[in-house]
């Protein structure tokens, strides 16, 4: 079974390359591409769930298959499959490239999840981010350049941080760094690189107030491009953050205070900005930013329960934030693009509604369960002030989500003439309908049947802290 552990990665990369090649061929019917790509991601997920429970190391410890890797890979593969299935491919500039990029983005997260050293963490993050840049460039090269520059800054901070940690501890292997950190303690030479590292990750994840790049890009990119930038790249950065905070857990003083402040700002600013904006995609981006704050809050507790809660919430976030912009299709032009969607595209409308509510942390969906688990860990650690700020952010987020639900379900559809001018309805296909239903089931089921997922997240946190 050990030999099959890397099969999902191989499947995803092979599928992405095949799509890139197939996209260059002429005169072939390509209607089956999305179904095949979604099916491939699902098949990779099934293989991962089947063989991923095997504990193994590869390439001399550079890749590690543990429970965290299983959890993160399963979550990102599900997110990729759902995003491909719900995307309105007539909105995308180069569908084959889009599908390939989301698969490559997922591959980047899979590499991070399995990474046993700094190189793997950095390489995976760069792969995921590069996929986002490529996809954004297909529609807006100026925004792609902006994303590239911001990504360069983030990458620079990250690399400097990693290099300094390597210099301080003398190791790049995560386990060795963990042991070294325990003996070194929270010294200044150790604290500064950690701060740089977290800063780089915060830029990548779009943690408010550093969302200045992600939100405009999310607005200008194609739906799937926005999904990668808002969801998948952020999930990649958060996966790195989970691993980094786990290895720094012996010296919480080196990261916990910064992370708490960053989480507080993200939760409150994310909620307030979501409430203030009217554009559905920008609102989704801010709601996602608020939820990133919750994940950071869980990590800041530096307890196993907090880590487990953050891992659980990370899965919910990856699914909702990656598939969310894709399922909204052309809603970047304004709220009226969603008006009456509940009447005209009920399955897609339900999926959009659940995505918004889950990212806002409304009960009884995946986001609520995750945020509640984080809240419980905050209460256990005595960080009641952070909990209070998080609740404030969540209240504003739920208010914002209700505003979008109103547009979907309570406003009448715009005239067809006006719709043609900008707000074209997503094309109705069997795949997108089934994908939207599957997205609804995933978001609702992730919370309602949370027990096995929470158990896996708990095992994941145990594996990280071992």
């Amino acid at each position, binding site marked *: 079974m050990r030999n099959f552990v890397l099969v999902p990665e191989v499947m995803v990369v092979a599928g992405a390359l095949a799509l890139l090649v197939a996209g260059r061929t002429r005169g072939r019917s390509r209607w089956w591409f999305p179904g095949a790509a979604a099916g491939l991601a699902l098949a990779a997920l099934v293989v991962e769930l089947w063989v991923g429970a095997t504990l193994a190391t590869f390439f001399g410890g550079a890749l590690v298959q543990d429970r965290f890797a299983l959890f993160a890979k399963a979550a990102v593969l599900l997110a990729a499959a759902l995003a491909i299935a719900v995307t309105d491919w007539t909105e995308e500039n180069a569908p084959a490239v889009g599908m390939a990029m989301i698969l490559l983005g997922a591959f980047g997260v899979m590499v991070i999840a399995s990474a046993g050293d700094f190189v793997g963490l950095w390489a995976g993050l760069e792969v995921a981010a590069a996929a986002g840049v490529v996809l954004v460039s297909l529609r807006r090269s100026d925004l792609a350049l902006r994303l590239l520059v911001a990504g360069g800054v983030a990458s620079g901070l990250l690399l400097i941080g990693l290099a300094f940690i390597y210099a301080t501890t003398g190791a790049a292997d995560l386990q060795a760094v963990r042991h070294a950190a325990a003996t070194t303690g929270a010294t200044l030479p150790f604290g500064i690189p950690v701060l740089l590292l977290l800063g780089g990750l915060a830029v990548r994840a779009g943690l408010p107030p550093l969302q200045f790049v992600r939100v405009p890009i999310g607005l200008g990119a194609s739906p799937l491009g926005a999904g990668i930038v808002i969801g998948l790249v952020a999930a990649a950065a958060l996966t790195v953050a989970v691993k980094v905070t786990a290895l720094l857990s012996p010296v919480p003083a080196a990261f916990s205070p910064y992370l708490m402040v960053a989480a507080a700002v993200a939760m409150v600013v994310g909620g307030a900005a979501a409430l203030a904006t009217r554009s559905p995609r920008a609102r989704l981006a801010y709601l996602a930013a608020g939820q990133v704050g919750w994940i950071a809050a869980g990590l800041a507790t530096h307890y196993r*329960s907090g880590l*487990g*809660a953050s891992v659980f919430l990370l899965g919910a976030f990856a699914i909702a934030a990656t598939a969310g912009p894709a399922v909204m299709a052309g809603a970047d032009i304004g709220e009226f693009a969603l008006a009456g969607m*509940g009447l005209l595209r*009920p399955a897609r409308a*339900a999926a959009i509604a659940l995505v918004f*509510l889950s990212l806002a942390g*409304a*009960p*009884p969906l995946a986001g*609520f*369960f995750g945020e*509640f*688990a984080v*809240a*419980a*860990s*905050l*209460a*256990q650690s*005595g960080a*009641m002030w952070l*909990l*209070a700020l998080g*609740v*404030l952010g*969540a*209240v504003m987020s*739920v*208010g914002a989500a*209700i505003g979008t*639900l*109103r547009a979907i*379900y*309570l406003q009448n559809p715009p005239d067809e003439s006006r719709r043609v001018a900008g707000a074209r309805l997503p094309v109705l296909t069997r795949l997108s309908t089934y994908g939207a239903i599957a997205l609804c089931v995933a978001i609702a089921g992730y919370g309602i049947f*949370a*027990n096995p997922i*929470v*158990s896996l*997240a*708990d095992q994941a946190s145990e594996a990280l802290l071992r």
Partner: protein
Amino acid sequence: MLAAIAAATPTPAGVPGAGIFTSPLILSLTIWVPVVVAIVMNTVPNPRGRYDTLMKQIAFFTNLGIFFVLFIAYHLFETFLPTLQYEEKLPWLPSIGVTYHLGVDGPGMTMMMLSCLIGIVSVLASWGVRERVRSYFTLLLLTQATVNGAIASHDMFVLLLFWGAATIPVALLILGWGGPGREAAAWRLVGYWSIGTAALLVATMTVYGASGGTSFDMDVVLKAALTPRVQLAAGLALMVAAATRLPLFPFHGWVRDVYSEAPLGVSVVIAGTASRLGGYLLLRGLVAADADASRLLSPLLAALAAVTIIYAAVVALRSVDLRWAAAHLAMVPGGITVLGLAALTPLSIAGSVLSMFTGGLVAALIVAAAWVVTDRAQTRSLSVLSGLAPRMPILTWLLVLGALGLLGVPLLASFPAETMIFFGSFKTQPIGSFAVAAGLVLTAIALAVVAHRVLFGQPNHDAPAVSDASLGETWYLGLLAGGLLWVGLFPSGPKLPGTDLPLFDPGLVNVMSAGITDIASPYVQPAPTAAQ
């Protein structure tokens, strides 16, 4: 021969369906059946509203079915057992100690009966909805499910889940089907109720953290030995949560707009059950759990109750809009309930539980009757509405019945409730009781002024034409009034003539008493000995 038959069949053969009403899933049915029906309704194609009537019927029969099942559960309720009944317990998130724990004791069963009755009334009151019927009834059923869930939950997480979830369908119902001021109404409601949800979350996390962080089960969290400081902090947060729902002054900002702008069926649900959850939360989370904090906070609670009632009466007296007046008057039962809980005597606590039931019926009746009167009279202005009694005899009766119910006159269910509360309160909260009584006098004056002006004054010949309640309106308003009369006339249920055998109704007072002794036991003062 009989002995032989008995010996031959020592255990009776299983009858299909027997025991269904003692099934451990009965509370889950009341929560999840409306959810499933709502999802199915929302997915069934309804081209151009072709099946709108069917949607209404489905919503009605769903509520009726739940009421029927629950009524049998109520009939089979063991009134001598102080423990939870119809209990369901499943691990949900074991790693943080969340269990899917449902169960009802006497007060819980009373609230469930109220919720199901109000559910039926709300569907009937919504029969006139014409736009987006499917969405409306989907949301109404979801609201019903969240209220039932909040009542039945015995785990703080589950309570919080349903408590918070109620905000979304209610807000959407107001935004989608409300009157001209629906925007303000919906956002005010979202704001205040969200504050309440946040306060409940803070209270939950405070006691969870202080009790070791192992379980959210109420049996663990609310019975843990907590320091007085933690009890006080959690108690204050619970008070805020409850005050946003009941509502109590100064968390009442949503009342006027919501009750006057929300569609009638939604107003009925909010006034009837959703707002009663505030009192129920105080009972469960504060009075039954934290005796020290309850004693410490009881003067504050009594003061809030008094201020709420006096404020509501004064504002109703000065209102220029009948719906606004009714909205403020609907705050009065909540204040009375809180006084009973603040008094912390067995009698007053029992009165509070009964007053949650009667208060729900009265508030719903007042709000609904005022809504129908203004709808039929084509104006809400108290300067225009005048002398309607001869032209609206049915509505006049119902409105007057609601007003009398609010004041707690004999023969109505609110009479025993208010009597128990005042008899139980004067000793422990004399100032609060006196102030609440004074507030009730003001309420009586406000009711008399409004009723005299609207119903019995000189007819206004310049006013638009009016008509009396339709048959449908009479039915659902009559159901509310009938509930008040029934419990008022038969608080212990009707008996077979000449015997103590109950007929179909074991009596609301008997059912609600199960569990109150346990709740009130920390507050029972020792009886004086003979030597003393």
